């Protein structure tokens, strides 16, 4: 009896060790990402036939995707979602609250047909998800208290207390670029970070300027926060669709072009995110936009 127990412990230890070793080196291979959707599965067909779409949006990002206490969604991502769904022929939209870590999983499981949730297009994600758009180019930026002028660019973060989000590319970028030179803490949500900033425990919050602007625009934060406006990356927001849905990508791209053209894109932007510069709409299909100062 004793030896089989020892064997069980040894087996568990070996399995854990194997996991760690397999994680060293190359990223874990994508599993089953290659199946392309047959014509019946495209989001374009679903919108036309079922007239209903399930769309994943963020529930906790003011100005982009925010769910209020009565369950209503608002924000720029939400407005884009409504416009596209409308153009595709759907009359009913079910918004599904989606956190950053769920976006690929929800698409792969079919829980949502489309994801518009501050979803940056990266090469890694393109292996498992098909992107339409982009519909906005955000930039990593810094949020500080209104009277603080000591932080004007990314290098000024050195030696300061900074907050970012767990699992965010912005936080990863700071860690990789500055390491321990920046006193960084990563909390689960940006709401927590903003509270830390307002309370004085940190001097800056860093993530996409859209997210920062959304918090700065909230009524309770009026006049207290300032988006520095020093862009140090390009975050290319795309619309996530199930991998292989080329028909859907085309349909959504066309809807986006219409939105850029008839002015609704710009008016949604100025309504939801007044702090961000109302830039010209991005070039559809251009996913690789290297950052220039």
């Amino acid at each position: 009896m004793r030896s089989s127990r020892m064997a069980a412990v040894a087996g568990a230890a070996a399995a854990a060790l194997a996991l760690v070793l397999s994680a060293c080196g190359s990223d874990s291979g994508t599993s089953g990402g290659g199946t392309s959707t047959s014509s019946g599965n495209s989001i374009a067909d679903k919108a036309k036939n079922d007239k209903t779409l399930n769309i994943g949006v963020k529930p906790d990002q003011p100005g982009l995707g925010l769910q209020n206490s009565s369950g209503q969604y608002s924000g720029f991502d939400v407005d884009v979602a409504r416009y596209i769904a409308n153009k595709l022929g759907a009359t009913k939209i079910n918004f599904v609250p989606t956190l950053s870590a769920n976006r690929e999983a929800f698409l792969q499981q079919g829980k949502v047909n489309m994801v518009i949730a501050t979803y940056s297009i990266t090469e890694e994600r393109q292996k498992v998800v098909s992107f339409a758009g982009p519909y906005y180019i955000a930039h990593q930026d810094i949020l500080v208290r209104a009277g603080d002028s000591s932080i004007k660019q990314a290098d000024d973060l050195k030696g300061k207390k900074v907050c970012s989000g767990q699992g965010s590319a912005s936080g990863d970028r700071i860690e990789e670029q500055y390491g321990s030179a920046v006193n960084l803490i990563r909390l689960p949500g940006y709401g927590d970070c903003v509270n830390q900033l307002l309370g004085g425990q940190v001097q800056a919050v860093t993530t996409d300027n859209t997210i920062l602007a959304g918090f700065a625009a909230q009524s309770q934060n009026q006049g207290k926060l300032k988006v520095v406006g020093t862009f140090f990356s390009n975050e290319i927001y795309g619309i996530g669709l199930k991998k292989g849905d080329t028909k859907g990508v085309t349909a959504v791209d066309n809807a986006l072009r219409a939105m850029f053209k008839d002015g609704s894109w710009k008016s949604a932007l100025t309504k939801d995110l007044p702090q961000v510069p109302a830039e010209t709409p991005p070039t559809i299909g251009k996913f690789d936009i290297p950052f220039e100062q």
Partner: protein
Amino acid sequence: MRSNGHTILLAFWTTVKVSALSAAGSLVFGTILAAMRVAPLPVLRTVGTLYVNILRNTPLTLIILFCGLGLGSIITVAEVQTTNYFWLAVFGLVAYTSAFVCEVLRSGVNTVPLGQAEAARSIGLSFIQTLRIVVLPQAFRAVIAPLGSVLIALIKNTTIAAAIGVPEAFYTMRNQLQSHGDSVIPIFVGYALFFIVLTLPTGLLFGWLAKRWTVTW
């Protein structure tokens, strides 16, 4: 990108550190609380009872958030933020777990025959001496198995520290889920296995100790 394996190992090590430090602190403070609850002084008994009832019945998530974001706004333990929240998390875990250690130990104290405490008193031992020399050693031996359960719960509870930014296993798992959203199941299984590797030997150890120290009448 930095080596995944290195980050994971660092996270696992942080979990082990938080667990070990919290376990040590809870054992010490839990014993003190148990002593307070059986003390002859009513004040001590009241304070001990109040503490245990409040801490045992408050969700650990609230306690950790309070320590990190509430206490953290008033006191700063270390300059580096991750270290600061590391210690605040340990503090919160100790505050919570010692209530459970206290209750477990108290039931152990109750298994020690009253005659022993009376005999100790009659040979002139003080309260503290009675506890230290006669009662507590026997109490510990009697409840070593439930103490093991409390320790296992503590190891798993360390994941809550991620809510205040401590870079332990769950925090790292969340980061990995973000960048590898296609391998959700293997990631979950891997981290669950890690915790089993921590808790299973602990349970076995305490079970073995319990058998070894079985109180026979």
